[in-house]
């Protein structure tokens, strides 16, 4: 399993729309030669995809979508790989846009060592992320603007910084004491 997180400067709904527009995959997914929708019912679609990167592979994949949240995919059949499954998880980026966390597990068979496959998968996921960023930029602004209002306002941190006490002089029963950087000075 390889995981990659990427930030896309588009609203979550736009990113989800791109990821579920399966017919358009050949236009932007690196190495995607063909994508045919075999069946589609509700949030579940079965596709035949031909990918050509290190090797040309044909995959029948089932996609299961949770709108604007998650897109899972799993292998239905393939002569070329033993396992191919993963997901796209969408999160609102703290400074605007969307963070896409992509997971992919690929088992190319006994002839391909796992560490080599994982390395290839990582670079493929990074390339796909970059392609997604570029493709999202080209989306009509009207579509992006219509969903932009759903985005939360960005924030750098989960909480505002708390005031930091640097120095305190207090009056106690035994006299005045000085507290500095967590240490107390003065009469006990």
């Amino acid at each position: 399993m390889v995981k990659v997180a990427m930030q896309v400067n588009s609203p979550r709904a736009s990113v989800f729309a791109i990821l579920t527009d399966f017919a358009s995959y050949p236009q932007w997914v690196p190495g995607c030669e063909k994508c045919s929708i075999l069946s589609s019912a509700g949030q579940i679609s079965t596709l035949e995809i031909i990918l050509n990167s290190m090797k040309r592979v044909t995959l029948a994949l089932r996609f299961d979508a949770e709108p604007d949240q998650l897109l899972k995919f799993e292998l239905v059949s393939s002569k070329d790989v033993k396992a191919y499954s993963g997901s796209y998880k969408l999160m609102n980026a703290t400074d605007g846009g969307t963070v896409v966390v992509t997971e992919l597990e690929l088992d190319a068979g006994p002839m391909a060592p796992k560490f080599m496959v994982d390395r290839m998968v990582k670079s493929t996921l990074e390339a796909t992320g970059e392609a997604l960023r570029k493709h999202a930029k080209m989306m009509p602004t009207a579509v992006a603007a219509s969903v932009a209002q759903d985005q939360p306002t960005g924030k750098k941190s989960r909480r505002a910084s708390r005031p930091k006490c640097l120095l305190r002089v207090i009056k106690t029963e035994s006299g005045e004491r000085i507290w500095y950087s967590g240490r107390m000075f003065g009469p006990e």
Partner: protein
Amino acid sequence: MKRKRTATATVSVKPSLVYEIVSDYAAYSRWLPGLKSSRLLAEEGNFAIVELEFAANPGVQLTVECIHAPTSMVVLRSLTGNRPRVEIRWAIAAAGSGEAQVTLKIEGPVSHALRPGKYRGFFDPDRGLAALQGVLASAGEGPAGEKIIEITETEEGLFCLYRGTRYRMEAGS
């Protein structure tokens, strides 16, 4: 090869304050040794994605996923398949009244953990806990008693509380 190290300390603050500090990922680079920057990319529920930049390797970001269980546990680990493989685990437990026991476990590749310089600082849980204690010291409630003077630093600047009145402090030159 991985290297695991663990350190434990008891601090004189409530577990909730410790949790608040160690789950504020965006603020990590302000106090955790060996970090140049820390950026919270996204957060939902008990899950967050954070980018860390090590002082020993500026310009290169390591993306980590974070899971937090309020007031008891915070775990940060490299996304699967990313290098270096790092896991930071904070465990927080109540220890007597107003005290907390904090355990920091750091796992990382031997090549990084033993390398002299800023990586070593990051992979040393004793230094991590000492840094946390420094943050807690300034974030804590402080001693009880009638406040005569208090100087605090906030995002808006320095303030001085003198006998019940708050003054903004400005540089004299």
